């Protein structure tokens, strides 16, 4: 549907670390979030500790090798033999290799284990959340949190942690080495670092706003593409191709303009940084040479060491700012994941909750009030008694609260006020699993799974006997088309049933409900999209299976309604009328009026 598309932010992905500072999102509670992340690393901590230690050692080579290289140069210049010092250097490089290799190798497994663990924790929490959560959130957004985000976030956090650690040690180590070699030259380098710091701050202040603007322009453009392509039939029907292209062009140009601006501004950073780097390099080169010539420095190799150090010293400073930004964004991302973990799950069963093995199906709805939000009641004071085995039709205009009533029966939502009793006991006093098992449900949306037809019909029951599955399909009238599928009951619905027609999908969901063989039935406009001949078949089977079972049927069709024992007419969240077809007809109220309108010209 065009109006409620996927939010464009999902198309672009939320965490895209990039050059020169993208949009940085600040975490609300850095410490707390990190502590919670640490909680989730349980079982992998020894490995993580190893990785952290290794990354600290990883800076060893960067600190020591310039010193050794410089020494070597001095020795060459003095024509001293350098065999031993080169062996030291080789050993150092080998150690460096070993450390880097084992760090990355370890991290590859540990990182993924942690990610898997977080994803699993998240999903097992999500599956317990009440329906209200899923109704409140965009599915596209939830999905990316369950899959990609966890991955991106953990990878970014772990890699920036190790890098921050390595760089931190590098900076300290290099600084000590530099001071011990020459305090004067160190001072010159510090001056360069200060300049870089200042520059980064000024540029990112500007670019941050520009990148946010670009993100917005991208969102607008993606939104337009989304709705105009998925609604192309309507665009064509109304000959709006040219207008759409013009609109697109405008948004496209706007994005292009702001993107160029953002990139050019952020692009100043690197070259300017390079200039400062080079400035430091040259200053040190000249300065140290002069010092050497004047005799303040004893060894020529010291110049080499220092020139190598200055590169090692400034780069981490530049990178750290970047890494820290990415780190912040990732932690903020983790906070969004934790928000989901903080959602209240469906209430636990009460400690003294009753088992519900084989309910009779007596319902009593007592003064039920309900609203999805506290301000707006959808159901206002509903009361009705339904004896076991009654076939109930719920009738009324769209938006009157019919589906909501069904949501309350299955405890997808809990009543705001009042109570619903099943066999004389409040629904909330039963074990949730038992209660849901008592219902066979066919819902408005025909949700099927990418599995075999057989698995779909026997959904929720693994290893069901084929005979029972076929039997259920036969009763639902789905047997015919299933046997025509390429592999019959073993045909895999690759696209979750989208390859079937709407009617066929509906027949499968009915077969699924029949298979569940539950004592209470709920059918929410179950036959709305099935053709009338098939519907007739389904009606027969519904009549058949709803024999002696309490069943709730939301239907528009008169024939289905008339077959019911009790008709409840709902309007504006209230029961306006209730009774059998004949009673309501003779009363001449809302129901009779609706019936007559539908019969129309008769």
């Amino acid at each position: 549907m065009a109006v409620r598309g996927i939010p464009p932010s999902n198309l672009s992905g939320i965490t895209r670390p990039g050059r020169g500072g993208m949009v940085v999102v600040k975490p609300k509670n850095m410490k707390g979030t990190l502590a919670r992340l640490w909680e989730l690393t349980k079982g992998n901590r020894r490995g993580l500790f190893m990785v952290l230690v290794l990354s600290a050692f990883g800076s060893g080579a960067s600190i020591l090798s310039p010193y050794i290289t410089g020494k070597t140069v001095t020795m060459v210049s003095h024509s001293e033999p350098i065999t031993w010092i080169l062996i030291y250097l080789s050993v150092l490089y080998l150690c460096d290799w070993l450390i880097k290799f084992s760090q990355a190798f370890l991290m590859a497994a540990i990182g993924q284990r942690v990610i898997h663990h977080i994803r699993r924790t998240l999903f097992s929490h999500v599956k317990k959340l009440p329906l209200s959560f899923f109704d409140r959130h965009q599915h596209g957004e939830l999905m990316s949190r369950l899959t990609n985000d966890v991955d991106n976030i953990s990878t970014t956090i772990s890699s920036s942690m190790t890098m921050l650690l390595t760089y931190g040690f590098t900076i300290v180590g290099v600084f000590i080495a530099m001071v011990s070699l020459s305090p004067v030259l160190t001072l010159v380098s510090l001056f360069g670092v200060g300049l870089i710091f200042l520059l980064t701050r000024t540029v990112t202040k500007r670019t941050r706003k520009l990148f946010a603007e670009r993100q917005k322009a991208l969102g607008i453009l993606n939104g337009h593409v989304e709705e105009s392509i998925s609604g192309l039939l309507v665009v064509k029907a109304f000959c709006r191709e040219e207008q759409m292209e013009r609109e697109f062009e405008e948004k496209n140009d706007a994005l292009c303009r702001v993107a160029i601006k953002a990139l050019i501004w952020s692009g100043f950073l690197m070259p300017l940084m390079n200039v400062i780097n080079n400035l430091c390099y040259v200053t040190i080169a000249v300065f140290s040479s002069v010092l050497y010539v004047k005799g303040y420095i004893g060894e020529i190799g010291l110049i080499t060491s220092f020139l190598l150090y200055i590169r090692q010293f400034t780069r981490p400073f530049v990178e750290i700012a970047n890494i820290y930004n990415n780190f912040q964004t990732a932690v903020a991302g983790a906070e969004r994941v934790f928000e989901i973990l903080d959602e209240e799950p469906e209430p636990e069963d009460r400690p003294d909750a009753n088992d519900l093995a084989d309910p009779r199906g007596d319902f009593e709805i007592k003064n039920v009030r309900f609203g999805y939000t506290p301000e707006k009641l959808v159901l206002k004071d509903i009361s009705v008694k339904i004896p076991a085995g009654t076939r109930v039709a719920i009738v009324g205009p769209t938006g009157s609260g019919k589906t909501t009533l069904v949501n309350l029966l299955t405890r997808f939502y809990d009543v705001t006020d009042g109570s619903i009793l099943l066999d004389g006991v409040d629904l909330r006093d039963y074990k949730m699993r038992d209660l849901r098992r008592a219902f066979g449900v066919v819902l408005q949306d025909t949700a099927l799974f990418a599995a075999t037809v057989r698995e779909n019909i026997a959904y929720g029951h693994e290893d069901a006997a084929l005979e029972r599955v076929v039997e259920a399909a036969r009763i639902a009238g789905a047997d015919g088309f299933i046997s025509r599928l390429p592999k019959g009951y073993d045909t895999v619905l690759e696209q979750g049933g989208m390859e079937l027609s709407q009617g066929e999908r509906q027949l499968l969901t009915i077969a699924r409900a029949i298979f569940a063989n539950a004592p209470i039935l709920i059918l929410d406009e179950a036959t709305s999209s099935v053709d009338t001949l098939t519907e007739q078949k389904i009606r027969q089977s519904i009549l058949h299976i709803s024999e002696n079972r309490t069943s709730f049927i939301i239907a528009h069709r008169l024939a289905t309604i008339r077959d019911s024992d009790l008709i409840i007419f709902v309007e504006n969240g209230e029961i306006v009328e209730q009774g059998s077809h004949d009673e309501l007809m003779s009363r001449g109220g809302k129901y009779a009026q609706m019936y007559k309108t539908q019969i129309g010209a008769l």
Partner: protein
Amino acid sequence: MTGHRPLSRPVTPKKEGQRMKLILRYLRRHLGVFLLSLLFLTMEAMADLLQPTFMSFIVDKGVTSADISTILGYGAIMLGIAAVGAVSAIMRNVFSSRTSQTIGRELRRDIYHNVQQLSLENIDRLQPASIITRITNDVTQIQDFVMSLMRMMVKAPITCVGAIILIIFQTPQQAPVIIGIIGVVSVLISGVIRIGYPRFGAVQRRLDRLNAVAREFLASVRVVKAFNAEEQEAEKFDVASHSLASANTAALRVMATFMPLINLTVNFGIVLLLWISRNQEPERIGRLMASVNYMTQILFAVTMIFNVINNAVRAIASAQRIEEVLNEKPAQAKPVRPLTPEITGAICFENVSFAYAGAGKEALRDINIQIRAGETIGIIGPTGSGKTTLVNLIPRFYDVTEGRLLIDGCDVRDIDEKLLRTAVAVVTQKPLLFTGSIRENLRWGSDTADEMALREAARIACADAFIEKAGSEGAYGYEAMLGQGGVNLSGGQKQRLSLARALVRKPKVLILDDCTSALDAETEAKVLNGLHHLPYKPTVLLISQRISTVMRADRILCMADGTVQGYGSHEELMASCETYRAIYASQIGGEACGS
């Protein structure tokens, strides 16, 4: 449209070079700027390369002879070079930002333009969701690639080659070491590509699988809960997540093995370099220092090449997907010499048959019906019987496979497309509205319609009442915004709004495809009554599942399995058409039949 969707065409693999063609084609348009930025990039690389050489001059010529003015002189030159390098970097950045973003804009524009020209048959085949990701994600990939191409790709080889040449030039005895190292590094890189990329492919596939599981769970959460199947779904997710994690580990381990090895190779190069120069005369010590420095530059360049290859692989895949859309030709031909008849709304199907592309079975078979201008035709029949397909032929959403479809005596394929579609208004099963105000949405019907016409259309569609009440924050009624951040309408309200939009157009032919299904009986009756009394008397084709909706039509077309079962008034069909009688009995009930 019907539930039967033809599957998307399998992608035929092409040679890498050919796939790059798309990117090259767009780059060629900006060739001047591209070359200019390469020039600046080269200058930038040269500037980086020259620094250590001048450093060696300082050491060899200044330090050894204790000549401070020489030292300062070379220092000044080095600063000058650094400045040139910085200016070059800024320039190539300006050019690369501009070019990459402009190419992105052009690609998006061209894809979008082409998609707008395509027939619905093409769109069915490509699938809308897939087209959308091509315009958004795939273009971004290419944009990023062009950017990195202009920023690094050329710089890395120049730096590499330059560094090698300079090392060999300044210290010729090092040549074998350098060549050896380059050899080993190339072997290592090709190793990563050969062993690593298939594994990254596996990661992508498993990520898709995990996404599919999550999407399915979210879409079916009600069913999952109703059937107590949470554990089952969690297990599915667990398996998918675990297999993704192990694929990732395997891929990352390839990198963990090779990357440090490349590092080690270059480092050993430095050791070898020093070893070979162990007997260097002191006055050439500067050159030795420069060589060491160049080795680190080579290492840096190699890492960059690695990144670019990574980007290139992704960009090539994206280019291929984009090319597919760009190469798609409209399935329907535009008339060479379009006719512009005065359309009154008389429609005639002559031996019409139709099959969806790629579908074996015909969706319509040998349809012969005549519809007079101004008539109201009810169309009824089981799902999949071809009702929607039939009406979709009228505004030429699809073309007949056999036979002819005439409007006012002209074959629709010969009529000017715009004229045809302006005369025919369609209200689809699924109401589709667009971001914008209610008024803007209604204006789709006609840009020139005045306020009165809009209100009148809304009134007939029974949409006036809720439009008045719609809106928030300063935009109420007809100004209320729909879509992101705007009001969300119920299914029935959307249906009425899309009906009003069609009525604004005052069409000659009005097609209503089961578009009152979400309305309650009372509102539906009111809407139908309004349609009956339209002053401009269009031909109305009214598809419905409910027999009570079509019963009042002038004539009823009863369809089943792509063929006409009966065509006539309610009474005639009750007398002659078995299918119609069966539908009637199922909806109104057996005993009402006689009355």
